[in-house]
């Protein structure tokens, strides 16, 4: 059989087959195919939020699980993330228009002295996919950046990332400053990065250490819902 006969024509697949194929394409990091698939589903009348959750987040969750289990490695995850970014680029403006559910707002950034942002960017993307609004401060952030953004944006969550053992202690500087200013308990503080662990997260006073982007999303959802429940009970 020729290659041409092997080619899958996305527009000829029914919805279920297309979503399955898009999850496979996401796994393989095929950005153009993902963009095409997103456009086809939108043309078929799918809500942007449904495209996002079923095709993109669903696919990226499989990628995340296989990364956690040692089946995929960083390069493959980056390719998949790049493909998802292509789909998100199409969906993001539409999500804003169509009033997709909002989970909460997160200020996120890599700490002072650290320029690594791969993990942070993955978390940002998955959090956006889960309905969180993200304010990304980028890299090399001093404590003032975090606190100013948290207050300006009236955020729910602070996310801090570090790749280096030499920079991760700065997370404690940020949390200690929040305590000094009496604002620590106003926010959910999540931390992550390759050299961190749960013990470190506890020791510096974070609410949780998140091992990967999927855990960050689940943890954020739990904390936000707990916060809402507390507010409801208190009110």
């Amino acid at each position, binding site marked *: 059989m020729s290659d041409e006969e092997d080619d899958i024509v996305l527009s000829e697949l029914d919805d279920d087959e297309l979503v399955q194929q898009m999850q496979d394409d996401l796994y393989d990091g095929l950005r153009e195919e993902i963009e095409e698939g997103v456009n086809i589903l939108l043309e078929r009348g799918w809500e942007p939020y449904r495209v996002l959750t079923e095709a993109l987040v669903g696919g990226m969750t499989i990628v995340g699980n296989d990364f956690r289990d040692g089946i995929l490695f960083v*390069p493959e995850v*980056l*390719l998949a993330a790049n493909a998802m970014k292509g789909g998100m680029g199409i969906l993001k403006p539409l999500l804003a228009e169509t009033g997709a559910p909002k989970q909460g707002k997160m200020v996120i950034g890599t700490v002072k002295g650290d*320029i690594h942002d791969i993990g942070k960017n993955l978390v940002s993307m998955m959090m956006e996919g889960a309905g969180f609004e993200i304010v990304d401060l980028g890299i090399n952030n001093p404590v003032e950046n975090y606190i100013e953004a948290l207050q300006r944006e009236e955020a729910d969550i602070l996310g801090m990332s570090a790749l280096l053992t*030499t920079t*991760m202690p700065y997370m404690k500087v940020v949390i200690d400053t929040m305590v000094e200013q009496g604002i620590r308990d106003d926010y959910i503080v999540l931390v992550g990065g390759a*050299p961190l662990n749960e013990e*470190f997260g506890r020791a510096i006073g974070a609410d949780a250490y998140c091992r990967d982007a999927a855990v960050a999303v689940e943890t954020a959802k739990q904390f936000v819902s707990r916060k809402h429940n507390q507010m409801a009970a208190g009110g």
Partner: protein
Amino acid sequence: MADPDDATLARAGLPATGRGRLLLIACGALAREILALKRAGGWNHMDLVCLPAILHNTPDRIPQAVRAAVEKHRDAYDSIFVVYADCGTGGALRRVCDESGVEMVEGPHCYSFFEGNAAFAARDEITAFYLTDFLVRQFDAFVIRPLGLDRHPELRDMYFGNYETLVYQAQTDNPALDAQARAAADRLGLAYERRFTGYGELATTLERLA
């Protein structure tokens, strides 16, 4: 004796010879440098065993590997010294050394002790990506292939987009390595700087043991 080859140092390390009273347990990336210092100093009382240098890419595995090496060799030597700095272990290697009653090199990593810990800290250069002699020779095995850049060069800027300069910390004067390091910088899209460090505090640390 000829120096061990880099591929072996990367994957297998270097076995101890069993000669000498003091055992150095080192990263394979430092083997040639330690052997050169040992020869120059005539430090025949020192023996050297190296762990696989590729542990550099998985620092969380270094503490346990060092602990196992200390336990394996402890009875055969009067004393043991660990030729690793913290190396991305976040203090875990220091705890292992303290528990095992052995000393280790001061500093966060070899880039720092080659240049001198105080001088390196004073530079505070966060956008520099460092290579040593060993890492220049093993650039493909330690950087390009593990990051998948051989298969997916388009990922380069996701990894290195925030870096500005590749700093080659030269332990030796070697024009061929200089050219290789410059090519590595070009490949990563970074400016290039060669900085001669010699053996830095690796030398002064080992001299204290001599």
